[in-house]
Every structure is written in structure tokens, then in C-alpha cells.
């Protein structure tokens, strides 16, 4: 009798079970370690449909660039590739990719009709020859970079296990002019520094822009001739509106997690103190959250909306406090050396990022919401204003340099403290705020 494979397997399994009984496996063991090197990945030149040749090259370059900048991938140089992928449905010759030491291979295709572009990709594991992920995205051709970011996001998610963040944007304050008379404009760029453009004309001095969780609106403070006001600016329409008309200075606004409220800080009548208030954007009702004779500012909600982190000098120096959303249980959480400011809750709720001023320098760090596990990620002459990527893995901040020609620039760092990267903004820039993942 000739047995087919299924039968053989069944018999083998039965014999195995009968012969060995309970301890079924010869070798059992645990592996607790391994490599942490960036994963060598081959992003093959995307295949172009007629008329999309230059786009195809750009798209695969953006995908490789995103992956490389994350610090978790090492895209291999295309000139080292042995196999040339000629068709999207062509199964890679895995032996040739093993030879160039790629662990993963990306095959892609770019096509277009009219002003629409479609990008499709497939991701393979070289060792197991398994198809890991694949998808196709389409959008107006002018959003081609976003299509590439979508592809990179899926690859990143599949390999690292982290939520994606490449298809995002960052608002920041674009700074130009001499050091003592800087023109500050609201600006927007893609997460990788491309497509940077200014949104306002620079007639007001802009501070602390913050993205709404709905991603189309930004709230910021602006210092005018007589007062500082909080605005909401719609990226899509270019319209802005004042959040309330308060007699005193209002600053450090930030959206609540549901996007329905703006929490901010208002100066007292005598200008000596500031307390935290919240405005409901629909009803325009104001609610006072803190009432302590000190400077209480920079409020930031926890992602579940139950707590608020803020900075206060009530104890003599600037420190970070956490309280209930109703203002209850105001407890100091920062106890390291120096002054702590600009608390920003991570989107996953696990950390609070902050700026710490100690021994003459400014550092960016993270700590648990109860203040434990403090870790400084970067330190120097002046680092400030952390903002989180939506997947809570990367922090962007600005770093100022000394001297007449010095000025602030945007940087990013992994929350492990590794992989510092300078953002390629055209001029000086400060106060970055990361958007949620675009839809």
C-alpha cells in the first residue's frame, strides 16, 4: 500500500504518541536572548506601470528611508541585489536574497491613471519564504509620499510589533530672522521632514501649537500687542478662532483626548499666579481645575481623560504634578535633581515625557505617571518641548544652540534613548507637536 503524506503523518503521529507517551519532545528549552541589530531588509525597486517610472523609484526610496530612520531596520543598498524583480506577482528567488543577507524582502508596484496613484506591496520573510503582509493603497497622485508612508507603516508594524507612525505630520514653529527679532510662523511638515510649509504669516508670536486628536485642528497660544490668546486653527480650511476672550493672558493650551475641550492656563488678575482652566468648545463653559497661589501651567490629559499632568512652582521650584481630571489629589511626581516642566502624557498612557533643567543644561526624559523609572533620553545646552509619536515610541523635541548664529532645530529620539535624528527642516524650528496617525 502506498501511503500519501497525510497518512504517513497520521501514522507517525500515532506511533509517536504511543511510543513516547507524555514527555513528547526530545529537546525542550527556553531562549531568552538574541540579536537586537536592525533587521536587514531589501526594499526592491518598485515596479512601474507605464508613465510611473520616476514615481516608483521615489516611492521605494521613501519606504526604505522611513524604515531606516526608525532605527529598527537596515535597508540594504539596491546595487547589492542579485535578483531583479520584474513583475509584481513574481515570487522572489529566496536563495538570492539569503545570499545578500536580507531577512525580509519588499516587492512593490506603482501604477496610476489620471491623477490617481496606486501603490501595492508584498512583504516576505526570507528564511521561511513566508508571505508576511501585503496591501494596496490609492490616493490622488500629489499624496504619493503618504502612500509610501502607508506601505512603510505596514512593514514596520509587521516586523517590530509596534503600532505604525510614519503616515503622520508634525506642526511646529518656524523661526526666521535675527535672534533678537525672530519671526515665528505656524508650520506643518510630514513626519520625515518633507512637505514643510508655513500656515500663518508671522505677525503674531506663536507658542505651543498642539494637535487635536481629530488631527485637522491645532490649538496654540499667540502673543499679540496687548495679550496672549489661545486659538484653534483648522489646517484644512486655514481658518482660526479665538478660544474664549479672557481679560488676562492665556497660554499652554492642549486638547482633551476627546477633542471636545481645551485645557489651558490663565493668569491671575495681578499677574503673579496662573491656574488651570478648561473650556468646553461647544458650550463655551469654563471650568477652573486648580486654585493654588502659584504658577500652575502646561496641563496635559492622560489618554483616558481621567488625570491631568501639569507643572507648578508651588513648592518653590518648577515640578511636575498629577491630579484627577476634577482637580482632586494634586500630587508632585518629579523628585529628581533640578526643575521639571512640559509634562506630556504618552498616547499609550505608560509614560510622561518632560523637560528637566539641571546643572546648567536641559534634558528630555520620560518617567512613569507616578514619577518612578525616570530616564533622561538626551541632555545638553538646551533641549525642550517633547512631543510623542502616536505609537509612543519616538519623542520629537527642539534643541537650541548657543551663539549669535545658533537657533532651535527639531530632533527625534527613540524612547530607549537611542537613534537621535535631526529633522531636515529648512530653517530654525521649535515647539513640535506630532499628529495622530492619518486616516
Amino acid at each position, binding site marked *: 500500500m502506498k501511503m500519501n503524506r497525510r497518512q504517513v503523518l497520521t501514522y507517525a503521529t500515532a506511533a509517536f504518541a504511543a511510543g513516547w507517551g507524555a514527555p513528547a519532545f526530545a529537546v*525542550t528549552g527556553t531562549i531568552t536572548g538574541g540579536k537586537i541589530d536592525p533587521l536587514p531588509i531589501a526594499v526592491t525597486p518598485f515596479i512601474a506601470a507605464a508613465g510611473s517610472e520616476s514615481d516608483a523609484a521615489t516611492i521605494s526610496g521613501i519606504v526604505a528611508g522611513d524604515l531606516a530612520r526608525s532605527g529598527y531596520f537596515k535597508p540594504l543598498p539596491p546595487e547589492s541585489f542579485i535578483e531583479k524583480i520584474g513583475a509584481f506577482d513574481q515570487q522572489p528567488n529566496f536563495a538570492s536574497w539569503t545570499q545578500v543577507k536580507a531577512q525580509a524582502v519588499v516587492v512593490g508596484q506603482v501604477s496610476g491613471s489620471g491623477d490617481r496613484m496606486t501603490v501595492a506591496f508584498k512583504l516576505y520573510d526570507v528564511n521561511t519564504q*513566508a508571505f508576511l503582509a501585503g496591501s494596496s493603497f490609492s490616493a490622488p497622485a500629489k499624496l504619493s509620499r503618504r502612500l509610501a508612508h502607508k506601505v512603510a507603516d505596514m512593514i514596520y508594524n509587521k*516586523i517590530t510589533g509596534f503600532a505604525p507612525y510614519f503616515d503622520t505630520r508634525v506642526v511646529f514653529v518656524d523661526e526666521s530672522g535675527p535672534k533678537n527679532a525672530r519671526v515665528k510662523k505656524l508650520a506643518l511638515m510630514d513626519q520625515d521632514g518633507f512637505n514643510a510649509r508655513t500656515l500663518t504669516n508671522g505677525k503674531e508670536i506663536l507658542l505651543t501649537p498642539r494637535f487635536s486628536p481629530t488631527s485637522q485642528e491645532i490649538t496654540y497660544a499667540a502673543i499679540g500687542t496687548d495679550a496672549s490668546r489661545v486659538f484653534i486653527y483648522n489646517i484644512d480650511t486655514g481658518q482660526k478662532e479665538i478660544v474664549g476672550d479672557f481679560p488676562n493672558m492665556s497660554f499652554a493650551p492642549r486638547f482633551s483626548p476627546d477633542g471636545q475641550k481645551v485645557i489651558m492656563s490663565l493668569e491671575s488678575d495681578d499677574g503673579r499666579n496662573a491656574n488651570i482652566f478648561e473650556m468646553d468648545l461647544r458650550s463655551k463653559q469654563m471650568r477652573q481645575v486648580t486654585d493654588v497661589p502659584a504658577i500652575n501651567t502646561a496641563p496635559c490629559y492622560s489618554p483616558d481623560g481621567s488625570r491631568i499632568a501639569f507643572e507648578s512652582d508651588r513648592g518653590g521650584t518648577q515640578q511636575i504634578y498629577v491630579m484627577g481630571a476634577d482637580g482632586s489629589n494634586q500630587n508632585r511626581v518629579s523628585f529628581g535633581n533640578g526643575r521639571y516642566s512640559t509634562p506630556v502624557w504618552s498616547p499609550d498612557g505608560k509614560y510622561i515625557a518632560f523637560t528637566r533643567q539641571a546643572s546648567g543644561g536641559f534634558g528630555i526624559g520620560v518617567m512613569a505617571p507616578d514619577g518612578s523609572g525616570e530616564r533622561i533620553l538626551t541632555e545638553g545646552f538646551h533641549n525642550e518641548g517633547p512631543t510623542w509619536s502616536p505609537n509612543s515610541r519616538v519623542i520629537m523635541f527642539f534643541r537650541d544652540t548657543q551663539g549669535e548664529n545658533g537657533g532651535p532645530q527639531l530632533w527625534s529620539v527613540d524612547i530607549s534613548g537611542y537613534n537621535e535624528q535631526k529633522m531636515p527642516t529648512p530653517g530654525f524650528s521649535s515647539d513640535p507637536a506630532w499628529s495622530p496617525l492619518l486616516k
Partner: protein
Amino acid sequence: MKKPFAISLGFHAAILVAALAVLPTPEAFKVPPPEAIQVDISAMISDKAQKTAQTTDPTPDTATPADKQTKVTKDVPPAPKVDEKVNDAAHEPAQPPPPKPDTKALDKMLADDAAKQKELQQQADEAAAIADAQKQAEEKKKAEEKKKAEELKKAEEKKKADDKKKLAAALAEAQAQLNKIAGENTAPAKPNDKTGAPKHSDKNQQGSDSADTATLAAALLSRVKECFTIPPAAREGNVSVPIHFMLNPDGTLSGQPEVQGGSEDPVFQTTARAAISAIAECAPYQLPADQYDQWKDNVIDFNPKLLSG
């Protein structure tokens, strides 16, 4: 082979239909001035190979895993040379399925092991002698003046520390070499076992092969570890992913490694992917063929803990 083809065909047809239905919807791409445009996921790309990536089904008696088997083993760098060599080198009658390993090589490795062990022993002896000398010095010292004793003590402590360091370094090096041998050539790192025949001095051990099994396990684990890239998300969390895999007598993979149990947790998923990839990358495994039954069917729990790794 018809069934997978039909499934694949079905998938592609479904995608085409879905694409027809989804693509023409125009209002998803309203373009207000500075683009808040939504990217449209028009179709998830499928692939018949995708099934290969899904290894949740633990039963080995289905048709698809069988397909996978041939697929995986086929392109894995083959190790037939080992077989040939073995047959030439081994003078014993060829044992049916498991080919014998290169016994010369094995013997050499074992001899190396023995030499290393000897070296180790020498180092240990030296250390003991040093320790003795120190003891004597101590006794002598006692008799001496207090002032001098203090000086001596200091010097002695320093020496002791140095010696300890030296000994530790020597031990570590020897151990590393043993590990290397175990990892690369997977010779049973048992210096006394020159014939290769099981000779268990420890009678308390339950299974007669448990010592060998432990050595084999260590060899296999250290080899797989060399190929395992810990996924970033698994570097902080505590994830445990047991992978079951079987090996052919020539050390190649028999079938696709399979995840035991399952979870939708992305950290689990990505760790499982990396683990299976590592097991495939490190194949073929060069393990002693005469002990094939001790490494043909294995489970490794991937439980990355970066700090202890």
C-alpha cells in the same frame, strides 16, 4: 495541489470584485486645500504563500503543512555532504535512517574538549596551588609584626583578587570555547565520553540519555539563539512563544515550525514570526546523527528578556 490553487483563485477573484466595488467611490478623496485626504485601502493583497505564515494549526495531519514541508526543506541550504562524508568515514554498518556523523571530526572535537578540560584542570590546579601558597603566607604573616602584617594583608588581597580574576577569565574563556563547540559543531561536550557511547557516571540520573539530551539541547538552543533577532516590541514586554519544530536526520527542517498555542497580541505574533524565521535560518543543524531521536522533535520557548539575554 488543486485545493490550494482553488482557494488562491477564489481569493484573487474576491479581490478583483472588491476592487471593482471599492475603487470608484469618489467622495473618499475630497481634496480640501492642504490635503487631509484619506488614503484608500482598496484591496488587501493576498498570497497563497500567506498560508505559510499562518502556523496556528497545530495538527500535523493536514495537507497544507505537508506542502509547506517540502517547500521549506527544498530551498534550505542542503547538507548532503555531511551524509557522504559520514558514510565514508564510518566503518560501522550503515544504520538505517539516521546517517552517522563524521566520527573523525567528532573524535577530534572530543579530543579538543578533553584537552580543553585538561587545560581547565591545570588552571584550577594552579589556582589551588596559589590558594595554598596564600594560606601559607597567611600563617607566616600571623607570626610577623603587626605593622608588616597589615602591609602584607593588603598585598595579599590584591594578589588574591588578581588571581581570582585570572582564574575567572580562564574559566570563562574555556567555557566560551566549549559553548562555541557545542553551538557550532554540536559535539556532545563530554570530555570523558571519548567513544561516544553513553557512559553515565551519575547513576541518579533518570533517563539514561538525559545528560546527552541536556548537552544537545544546549547546543541546539545556542545555535538558534544566534539567528534570533528579538523583535523591538518584545524587548520590553514579557512574551513567551513556544515553537514546535521537527528535524530530519540530516539536520534540515522537517515541515514548518509551528507556534504552540496562539494569541492575537501583536507582540506575540511578531515574536512568533521572528522565532520561526530564526529556526529556519539556522538550519541545517549539525547534530550527532546517532542521537537523532534526541533532537528530531523539539519545542523551544522564545521568551526574550533583554536584560538577562
